[in-house]
């Protein structure tokens, strides 16, 4: 075992940061220090986030937007203040942010609203799909940004098309399937497998040229680098709290105001209505229109605390730190005979998910050896099965980082990969 120090060349005081994360202090598999390299699946939470949520629950908890007593006022303020702080963090106006349970719900919300548009006239027509219309995604999408569009095609008769991926793990812009029939282009900002950061401006330009909407899956970008939705010019975007040091059970859908204004609802019920009769109902303005039922109140408060925590560190610092870890991991893994990295090996337009395969050792077995050494990585297709098939693979090993990871942890990973090679080598 490599001891886990906090050596790093970046400006961050990672020792201090690690002290904020209670879980990172624990040991696994008979007393081994935990090396948590699975933040791409879900991140850990600092005390500050846990404390903020608990303080809310011990002092201000009440149903929001429904009560007239003091607690209800305080809870509503906490919830709406959370929305405003999170909006500022991603370059959006508060009313452009809808709280969902996760990013997956956000994408489903847009996809279902688009089929619901068939039932409403007026401004909602821009969301309508009919047979012949096309939806464009990419071959590197997470299932969350793929399956909902397949289902939308089934509901509306539209056709699904996609950008291919190059052997080097970049979006193949030459396979461009965007045509005047394209109604929406949905793509990931940063691949959760390849680490690839896609050319948002170029894709937005091409989509706009044909009048198509854009939806950005920002699940892997917002937690790791500065992101400004207004500057990017996308129409919709989604991300999840649990990947950015925040609570599970809360995600965000961003939508440009005019679009949210015009879009029909998805989930219906309490708090999203204007008038309700037995026969028919009308709906509240956004964002309330898209937040049916009692929302994830304390989780929104926790997510705002996570945003405060990240802002305090500075997203540029976070990105720089992770770039350093990524650089180190790619270099060290690339130097191991029999290890192949899936995705770009340069760190330009690339984030910190490093996926690889080891000749003759299945990803699950590599993962098992790593786990035995206290190193937590993800093995499998990482919810991007078609992308794996594109590379002729069923499974890869993925190491992914966050602000609390260290170069020593990268070294522990590389040592572990070598140990797996030895363990499964014919020579044993």
């Amino acid at each position, binding site marked *: 075992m490599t001891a886990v120090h906090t050596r790093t060349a970046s400006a961050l005081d990672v020792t201090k940061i690690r002290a904020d994360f209670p879980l990172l202090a624990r040991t696994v*598999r*008979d007393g081994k220090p935990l090396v948590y390299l699975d933040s791409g699946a879900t991140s850990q939470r600092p005390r500050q986030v846990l404390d903020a949520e608990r303080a809310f629950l011990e002092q201000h908890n009440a149903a929001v937007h429904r009560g007239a007593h003091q607690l209800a006022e305080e809870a509503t303020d906490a919830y709406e203040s959370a929305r405003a702080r999170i909006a500022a963090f991603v370059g959006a106006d508060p009313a452009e942010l809808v709280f969902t349970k996760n990013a997956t719900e956000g994408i489903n919300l847009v996809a279902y609203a688009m089929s619901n548009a068939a039932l409403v006239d007026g401004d909602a027509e821009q969301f309508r799909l009919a047979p012949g219309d096309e939806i464009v995604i990419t071959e590197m999408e997470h299932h969350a940004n793929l399956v909902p569009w397949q289902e939308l095609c089934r509901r509306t008769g539209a056709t699904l098309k996609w950008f291919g991926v190059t052997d080097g793990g970049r979006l193949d812009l030459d396979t461009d399937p965007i045509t005047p029939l394209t109604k929406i282009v949905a793509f990931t900002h940063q691949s959760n497998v390849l680490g690839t950061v896609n050319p948002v401006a170029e894709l937005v330009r091409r989509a706009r040229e044909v009048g198509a909407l854009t939806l950005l899956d920002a699940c892997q970008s917002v937690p790791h680098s500065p992101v400004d939705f207004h500057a990017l010019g996308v129409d919709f975007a989604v991300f999840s709290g649990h990947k950015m040091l925040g609570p599970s059970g809360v995600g965000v859908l961003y939508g440009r105001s005019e679009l949210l204004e015009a879009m029909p609802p998805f989930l219906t019920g309490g708090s999203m209505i204007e008038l309700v009769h037995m026969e028919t109902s009308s709906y509240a303005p956004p964002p309330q229109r898209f937040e049916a039922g009692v929302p994830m109140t304390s989780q929104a408060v926790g997510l705002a605390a996570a945003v405060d925590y990240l802002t305090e560190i500075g997203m540029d610092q976070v990105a720089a730190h992770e770039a350093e870890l990524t650089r180190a991991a790619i270099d060290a893994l690339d130097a191991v005979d029999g290890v192949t990295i899936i995705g770009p090996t340069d760190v330009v337009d690339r984030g910190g998910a490093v996926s690889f395969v080891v000749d003759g050792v*299945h*990803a*699950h*077995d590599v993962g*098992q*050896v790593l786990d*035995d050494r206290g190193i937590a990585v993800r*093995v*499998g*297709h990482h919810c991007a*099965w078609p992308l*794996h098939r594109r590379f002729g693979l*069923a*499974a890869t090993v993925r190491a992914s980082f966050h602000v609390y990871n260290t170069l020593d942890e990268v070294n522990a990973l590389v040592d572990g990969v070598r140990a797996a090679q030895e*363990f*499964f080598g*014919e020579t*044993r």
Partner: protein
Amino acid sequence: MQLEQMYQEIILDHYRRPHRQGLREPFDAETFHVNPTCGDEVKLRVKLSGAGPDAVVEDVSYDALGCSISQAATSMLTDLVVGRTVAESFTTLEAFQAMAQGRGQVEPDEDVLGDAVAFAGVARYPARVKCALLGWMAFKDAVARVTDSAAQTNGVKR
């Protein structure tokens, strides 16, 4: 290191040199099973002779993509069921499943499981249980298809 407990030598042997690998003719039923969490897959064929519980497993052939555990378990399965009756092979299957899902709490019976007791260590890793069971479930499913269609041909309702 607990690794050696999980990856016993006999498991690694089966993984490196799998028995009865490849898809063969003739066969009575073919199944395709996938482990959705990791993408591992197995296509498996069975050939039976006779009918009912006393039918004998003549051959099991397969094409598998997967980790050492799933490959070795499928290879070993063929050793344990080929040449035995469906009833016998299902007894082994049930014991194997009970052990694999037993979280290390189920004492494996070597008389029933034979070499497959080597998989006892896997039971301590819940995420690997599906790997160990992939080939076995494909086998169970394939046998069921043969006997079901036989039952249907005989006009027997399920």
